[in-house]
């Protein structure tokens, strides 16, 4: 079956004064129906811009999609007329944002904001939409939904607002849900609840999900596949369990080592990748990760690495990808840490 979403060689650049920041530079991936894809990377790695490009919401100027194809259910979103794109947003592709404190309009009742979506896309009447809003709030687990639905956003806590955002995103039963760091702004206990909620709703509705995060722990328990992004490119893509077991890119390995392990009693300082992410407007000629990479050799600084296929679903952007894959032991995760542990953590 054709994938629901197929991104091919997407390049989204931002024009700065004299330079061009290549925020996304040649990203390709597929997403099947009902599949959950995790996109992981540091700030500025291009994960959010990738998804804004899918929604065609990249601020322009200065941003522009230079090339590529985003085929959603057989149609290229990048060439769609603006009006048709508007009908896809919210109706077939929905988005959840990072900060629930600012993603609801403070001057509109929650009910009005929920109703706006369904009245727009499903042609609901006022009363139908209101009923649907109550139903959606109940679905996302807001107690006393009928009374609270007419409240204002400032009367809801952060976790509750994120639930409202999820309710809003799911009210038209979209085929694709993009969650852009949905738990970053929430505290840990609420994080787990929200992730659990997204997981349950996904199972109930069969929606495909793209989960953007910089926290590997978040994606471990709920994604089928993971893309690791660095400096606007995909540096590794693999099924979740394989990525955790056999990370074949030094950057992925570094990310995995920097996840704190609560079972570790050694009191050793937590590993961190040295250096800072590069400025995507001034990339070095070779591998963008080379300056921070422990494995880097001369070739890394001079030649751009190939995107090596290691297994049917496993690719890595590294000169030494095969070597790393074969050795399989660059001590990715700290000892004793496996994906199943992460699973347990997120339950």
């Amino acid at each position: 079956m054709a994938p629901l979403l197929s991104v091919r060689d997407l390049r989204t650049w931002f024009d700065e004064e004299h330079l061009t920041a290549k925020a996304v530079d040649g990203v390709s991936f597929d997403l099947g129906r009902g599949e959950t894809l995790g996109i992981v990377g540091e700030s500025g790695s291009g994960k959010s811009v990738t998804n804004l490009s899918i929604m065609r919401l990249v601020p322009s100027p200065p941003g522009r999609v230079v090339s590529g194809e985003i085929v959603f259910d057989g149609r290229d979103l990048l060439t769609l007329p603006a009006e048709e794109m508007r009908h896809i947003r919210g109706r077939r592709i929905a988005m959840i944002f990072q900060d629930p404190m600012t993603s609801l309009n403070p001057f509109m009742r929650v009910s009005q904001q929920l109703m706006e979506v369904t009245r727009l896309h499903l042609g609901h009447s006022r009363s139908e939409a209101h009923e649907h809003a109550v139903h959606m709030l109940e679905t996302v687990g807001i107690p006393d939904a009928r009374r609270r639905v007419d409240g204002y956003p400032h009367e809801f806590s952060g976790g509750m607002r994120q639930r409202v955002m999820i309710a809003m995103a799911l009210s038209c039963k979209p085929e694709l849900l993009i969650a852009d760091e949905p738990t970053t702004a929430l505290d840990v206990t609420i994080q787990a609840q929200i992730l659990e909620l997204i997981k349950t709703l996904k199972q109930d509705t069969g929606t495909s999900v793209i989960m953007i995060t910089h926290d590997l722990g978040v994606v471990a328990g709920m994604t089928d596949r993971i893309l690791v992004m660095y400096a606007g490119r995909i540096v590794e893509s693999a099924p979740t369990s394989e990525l955790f077991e056999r990370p074949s890119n030094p950057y992925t390995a570094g990310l995995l080592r920097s996840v704190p392990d609560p079972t570790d009693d050694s009191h050793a300082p937590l590993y961190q990748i040295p250096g800072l992410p590069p400025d995507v407007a001034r990339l070095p000629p070779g591998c963008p990760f080379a300056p921070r990479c422990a494995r880097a050799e001369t070739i890394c600084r001079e030649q751009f690495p190939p995107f090596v296929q290691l297994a049917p679903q496993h690719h890595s952007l590294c000169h030494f990808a095969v070597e790393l894959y074969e050795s399989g032991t660059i001590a990715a995760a700290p000892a004793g840490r496996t994906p199943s542990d992460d699973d347990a953590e997120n339950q």
Partner: protein
Amino acid sequence: MEKVTIVPEVAGTEPVVGTSLWRDAYKRLKKNRLAVLGFMVVCIIVLASAVGPWIIQQTTGYTYDYIPTDPALVTSQPPFTAPDGSFAWTHPMGTDDAGRDILARVLLGGRISLMVGVISTLVSLIIGIAVGATAGYLGGRVDEAIMRFVDVLYSIPYMMVVIVLLAFFGGRSPISQLFLLFIALGAVSWLTMARIVRGQVMSLKSQEFILAARATGVPAARIILRHLVPNTLGPVIVYATLTIPSVMLLESFLSFLGLGVQAPLASWGSLSADGIQNIAVFPWQLICPGLTMAVTLFSLNFLGDGLRDALDPQMRKG
């Protein structure tokens, strides 16, 4: 399950679901005594202007343009004075040269002055919000073009524009003159409003709830009207309440020059202009309309200041 935040129940203060930010602002406004006083004075003056002339007509028979038929009464009497010099309630503000009741004229003038203030401000509000929100939301070249146009208009002395407009098109009838005044004053005072709204919209545009609205496929016009404009209303209301007195002042200035309201209609400005000619002999002809106007403008300014404090975004609770 997530816990519901339960506000501890104090007797009688049940948490109300659906308290808007406006209600919070109203609470803060009520604490500001000067603003409340200003609000009350404004209300009284509005009410008096609305029904006052009718009451005077019912009790004394005087209207704003009634000139007594008895030649003995066609003379300016001081406040609270009967023709024979004794105390009387008939004319609390006295009469003018033609024997017309000044109170009736001041109240009618109040109607016109307030109407000029409110309607011209509304005109400037509509133009300013439309232009400012469009420029701010669309940004880029459209914004650049619109705002440079506004800058050009800023540089033209607005008084000249109004005077030219009024002198050129005015004078057909008192009513058409009045409409021209509304439009002329509105047309010169929308510039600052447009800048304020644009600034607000630009800072709101980058907020996530606007992105969220776009991501749910809300059309641009609807985003501007339903999401952006209501969020700019705080500063806009404050500026509007402060625009009303400044427009009223402008109107009285024009009327004072003889360009504004035409006889037999009157505004506080034209009444003052009439009064100043006789200031040495009949001071009440100037003092009465002038004082009424000063009190009203003071009150409106106090109210505007109070609203600014109440709606200040920095004081708003997250």
